[in-house]
């Protein structure tokens, strides 16, 4: 087996010599037949960070730094300390010297170079894990979202009166069949992105053994049939699953397994136990509240509906807020189902003239607010979004315009608290305004475009609807732009490229 060398490089400005020294050591170590890993402690923080495992397995540790580096983590290892220029000048000579002169750090009286116990920032946070998951999920959201967008555009058709209210695919024609298939493709992508996201968040926390349990757990938590609920838990439940699995697996890794079991611990024991654990958690701890919560929300909406007939703005705003809350999750689905149910119910009882359009219309007005709000914010505050996020925001624009709300999910997942406040506020504004102005949504796209591709009765044709929805979008964008934190921006940019 190849000898293992780990190194840390650092310099004053943290831009130039840190990296030159790293490059020099990497090259020289490979030439000398080492397996090598070099951590760079530069101005942008530690990169390629040495894990406890790396250090434990290393035969030799080299620190090439002009500033103080905390050596405490190298206790018990053979350590050689030099400055960056030495390594840059002749990496090979430094390693050869280290082989001869390195001393075990922490041995009595063993003092090494000018290093000192000092700062050593641990930079993994909640955001690091979530951003890692998002970076894997983004391509899928975008690909699936765009395909769904194309299919959705095709799905709206005129009824006998020439109003665009019918939604569906005429599968008897080749084109209709194709679009119907594409729609399914998009749906598959949206279904897969949830476990994919959870899997890689868990991977970021606890490495490979956590991927399988997190993916399986998140899939179950998002599947209405498996949960025996009217909707799956969406991305919020998936995040919960990912973090539970991540830390549970970390815990399992700490256990001192018997020697004979050790080789199969990461590939069999941990995934098996963690999958069993999370599945039961999802069924009995996460799933039940989702189903129960949806029923509770539904009765609450009924109560509001019955008690706010004179002020439709209240019901409209509540429905809007729910749509923006979890973007396709259980709260969102409850609001959608309620809107359709109330409409169908009142229409069969009192006829179309007296049907209750409020919740259904508010839901449709709110659907596009989150993705379009995110897009608008990314246009106004360019510097507050990473390159990947800007690409995702353009895709969110496409999705938002055809009423696919999921385009905003990556952004919410990366910064749940602030983003949910922004989306809920904007969506409530849009829902409340269309209810207050008495818009009636008969059918079509749930976005500003619905006024053209769809049929909406409104006080001022075309204009009222667009203004109401746009007001919501602006509110969301404004809150996002004003509250976006540097921690989130940094984390997002660090996974770029």
């Amino acid at each position: 087996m190849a000898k293992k060398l780990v190194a840390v490089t650092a310099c004053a400005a943290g831009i130039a010599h840190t990296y030159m020294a790293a490059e020099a050591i990497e090259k020289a170590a490979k030439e000398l037949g080492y397996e090598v890993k070099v951590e760079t402690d530069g101005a942008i923080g530690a990169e390629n960070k040495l894990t406890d495992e790396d250090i434990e397995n290393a035969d030799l540790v080299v620190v090439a730094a002009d500033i103080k580096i905390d050596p405490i983590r190298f206790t018990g290892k053979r350590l050689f300390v030099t400055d960056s220029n030495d390594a840059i000048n002749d990496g090979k000579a430094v390693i050869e010297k280290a082989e001869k002169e390195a001393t075990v750090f922490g041995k009595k009286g063993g003092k090494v170079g000018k290093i000192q116990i000092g700062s050593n920032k641990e930079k993994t946070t909640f955001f690091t894990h979530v951003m890692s998951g998002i970076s894997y999920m983004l391509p899928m959201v975008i690909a699936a979202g765009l395909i769904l967008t194309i299919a959705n555009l095709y799905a709206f058709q005129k009824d006998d009166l020439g109003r665009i209210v019918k939604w569906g695919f005429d599968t008897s024609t080749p084109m209709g069949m194709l679009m119907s298939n594409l729609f399914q493709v998009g749906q598959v992508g949206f279904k897969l992105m949830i476990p994919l996201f959870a899997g890689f968040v868990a991977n970021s926390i606890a490495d490979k053994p956590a991927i399988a349990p997190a993916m399986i757990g998140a899939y179950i938590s998002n599947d209405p049939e498996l949960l025996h609920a009217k909707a799956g838990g969406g991305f919020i439940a998936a995040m919960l699953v990912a973090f539970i699995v991540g830390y549970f697996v970390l815990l399992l890794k700490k256990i001192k397994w018997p020697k004979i079991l050790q080789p199969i611990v990461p590939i069999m024991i941990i995934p098996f136990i963690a999958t069993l654990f999370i599945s039961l958690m999802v069924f009995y701890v996460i799933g039940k509240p989702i189903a129960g919560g949806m029923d509770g929300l539904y009765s609450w909406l009924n109560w509001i509906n019955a008690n706010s007939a004179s002020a439709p703005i209240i019901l409209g705003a509540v429905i809007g807020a729910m749509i923006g809350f979890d973007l396709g999750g259980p709260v969102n689905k409850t609001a959608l189902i309620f809107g359709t149910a109330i409409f169908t119910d009142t229409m069969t009882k009192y006829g179309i003239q007296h049907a209750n359009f409020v919740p259904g219309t508010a839901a449709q007005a709110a659907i596009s607010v989150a993705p379009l709000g995110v897009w608008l914010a990314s246009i106004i505050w360019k510097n507050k979004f990473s390159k990947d996020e800007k690409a995702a925001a353009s895709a969110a624009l496409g999705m938002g315009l055809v009423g696919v709300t999921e385009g905003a999910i990556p952004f919410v997942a990366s910064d749940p608290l602030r983003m949910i406040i922004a989306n809920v506020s904007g969506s409530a504004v849009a829902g409340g305004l269309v209810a207050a102005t008495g818009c009636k949504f008969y059918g079509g796209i749930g976005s500003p475009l619905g006024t053209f591709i769809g049929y909406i009765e409104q006080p001022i044709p075309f204009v009222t609807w667009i203004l109401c929805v746009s007001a919501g979008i602006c509110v969301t964008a404004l809150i996002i732009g004003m509250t976006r934190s540097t921690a989130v921006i940094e984390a997002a940019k660090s996974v770029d490229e």
Partner: protein
Amino acid sequence: MEKEIFNQTNIFFDNESQTQDEAFQSIAKFVSYNGYSTSENDFYEGLKNREKESTTGFKDGIAIPHSNDDSVVKPGLFLVKFSNAIEWDSLDKKPITVAFVLSIPKNGSTEHLKLLSKIARKLMDENFRQTILENEDKVVLATTVDEI
């Protein structure tokens, strides 16, 4: 390499400097003239202070002087070629004919600082060093750096 950090106008031929101090002066003038530092004098002091800590001279006549003083307003990379070889106390004791200058803002974004660190890594590549040393044409030099 991003245009804001490096473009052809960041290449400069210094035909006058004979000493390291003169080189620092002309570098500081050039960097602040190009709008990367708000104070020629502060940047000059920054270069000198950095040099005091340890040499920025490298091998094969290349140095990588840099400053992160408060006058730096944006991250930048500058390629300076000297017609007089300059004493620099470099690692192989050869005088310097090429300087890669970095302006490093105190609050630079991670993205940009990463780009600057890439050039440092690239300097360890001998082919890259040869191309920079052997060419005098701005377009060739700019393309070579742009490929980083």
